[in-house]
């Protein structure tokens, strides 16, 4: 058997090598059109393989994709996103010959058709529909003042906006990048599809990377800003919420938020619509489909194409100079975006924590807020709420903050969508 396989492999390698040394091409040129068709064929084959145009940058990106998948499987970090995105990164970085309708940026290719929904911002609202249909807003309704923490954490967005401007980004790019600080994937993708489509890949990947790393990023900031004594604050258990309140919530939320920030309509309209389907009690089959098949299908396609859009090298003609410039993923822009992303998560966390401390200045004893739950205002649902819970348990093993942390956690989603809407209002 081994002999056998060996023979074939050697044959194959010979082909490849002959092509590699360019002799085939040479031969084809000299020998004319009719003769030398084998060498010609091998040459064409070789040119089409990924090996012929491979570059260390592509291999680097493939390694990144594999690393994402490793993180997802080994540590269970956001697997529903990191697995599709990681696979997408690999697929998007197979070196291709252009003109054969395969690559994601080539019109008429399958990936390009699937990417359409990302580019036009159609997928994120559908994801929000599903999220609305699976989210229970009870904890927010029962203790509305905690929503302020979700607003405060948007400091991450606006701080990053200033930071991105300082780092030299164009103003719309800066706005798109700033939404990473909202720690909501669909919102970030939607905003960048409108404000800076060429950065969708980088922004999405930064957002999801840091969302996966929330358990690593937040605890040190908590240690820095929240005293031992504050950590021990126990909060009253939230009151139960009636069915009617749950039904009214999406309706009131919809009308109120959209009147103030209509640009958030695609995101918040769908979020509240999904929640109404869930809470109305008469449309369960629609809610069920929205939070299973529909969100899954969109997640698969969105994750894969967002990943595939991170082509390492993408030579485009500069409209001014006429030179070919690399507008791919591995450029200084992406690196800056990753730096800003880390910054934005830190600022958002600090914003939530500090605001909780400020709130406590105004609140009576026994009614105070445990500052730890402020960190949950960044959203990254539910990872940051869990971090708050775990840090709370470290200080007092009987102090369960999860229920309380869900309120800022969920309101952070609304806050980021509103922030993204404002950015679009000002800059589109």
């Amino acid at each position, binding site marked *: 058997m081994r002999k056998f396989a060996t023979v074939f492999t050697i044959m194959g390698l010979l082909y490849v090598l002959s092509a590699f040394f360019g002799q085939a091409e040479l031969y084809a040129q000299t020998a004319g059109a009719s003769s030398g068709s084998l060498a010609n064929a091998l040459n064409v084959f070789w040119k089409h393989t990924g090996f012929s145009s491979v570059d260390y940058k592509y291999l680097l990106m493939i390694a990144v994709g594999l690393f994402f998948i490793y993180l997802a499987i080994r540590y269970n970090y*956001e*697997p*529903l*996103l990191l697995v599709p995105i990681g696979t997408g990164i690999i697929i998007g970085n197979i070196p291709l010959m252009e003109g054969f309708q395969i690559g994601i940026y080539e019109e008429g290719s399958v990936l390009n058709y699937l990417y359409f929904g990302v580019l036009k911002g159609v997928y994120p609202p559908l*994801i929000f529909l*599903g*999220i609305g249909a*699976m*989210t*229970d807003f*009870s*904890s927010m309704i029962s203790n509305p003042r905690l929503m302020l923490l979700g607003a405060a954490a948007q400091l991450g967005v606006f701080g990053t906006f200033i930071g991105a401007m300082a780092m030299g980004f164009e103003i719309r790019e800066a706005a798109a990048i700033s939404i990473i600080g909202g720690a*909501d*994937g*669909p919102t970030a993708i939607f905003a960048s599809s409108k404000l800076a489509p060429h950065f969708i890949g980088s922004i999405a990947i930064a957002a*999801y990377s840091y*969302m*996966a790393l929330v358990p690593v990023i937040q605890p040190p900031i908590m240690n820095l800003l929240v005293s031992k004594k504050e950590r021990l604050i126990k909060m009253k258990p939230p009151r139960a919420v009636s069915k009617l309140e749950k039904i009214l919530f999406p309706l009131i939320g919809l009308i109120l938020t959209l009147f103030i920030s209509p640009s958030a309509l695609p995101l918040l309209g769908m979020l509240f619509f999904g929640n109404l389907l*869930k809470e109305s*009690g*008469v449309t*369960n*089959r629609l809610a*069920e489909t929205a*939070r*299973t098949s529909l*969100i899954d299908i969109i*997640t698969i396609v969105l994750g894969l194409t967002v990943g595939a859009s991170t082509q390492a090298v993408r030579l485009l003609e500069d409209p001014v100079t006429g030179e070919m410039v690399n507008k791919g993923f591995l450029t200084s822009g992406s690196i800056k975006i990753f730096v800003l992303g880390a910054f934005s998560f830190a600022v958002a966390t600090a914003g939530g924590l500090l605001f909780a401390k400020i709130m406590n200045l105004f609140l009576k004893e026994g009614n105070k807020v445990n500052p730890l739950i402020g960190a949950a205002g960044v959203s*990254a*649902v*539910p*990872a940051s*709420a*869990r971090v708050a819970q775990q840090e709370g348990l470290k200080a007092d093993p009987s102090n369960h903050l*999860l*229920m309380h942390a*869900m309120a800022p956690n*969920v309101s952070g989603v609304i806050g980021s969508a509103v922030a993204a809407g404002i950015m679009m209002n000002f800059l589109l």
Partner: protein
Amino acid sequence: MTFLINVENWEWSDIFTITLVGYSVVFLVLVLLIYVFKLMPVVLNYKKRKSVEPGGAKMKGTEAHYVAGEVNAAIAMSLILYFNEQQHDDESNVITIKRVARIYSPWSSKIYSVNNVLR
């Protein structure tokens, strides 16, 4: 293609014609279906009887059918009662589409750990 009438300068006679022809065609279609489905059991039974004949009197014909029909009627009644009840009930228990499924971990790890989707 073949416009029957001038869309801008129609006359009432055209309108009545469309109405008449249209309504007749609807009947035509359904009458044809009626004939087909009146004939079908006859044809099918004929074939069946031919193949069953050697085996003996397996089919009791229409009577047997009516029995099954009674069952249907009973089912219908229970259904109607069920629906009535459902409609007048204030807290309708229409809910049961439960996929026993904990909907765990959606998008962006939005598990919303505290969501009790299945109330």
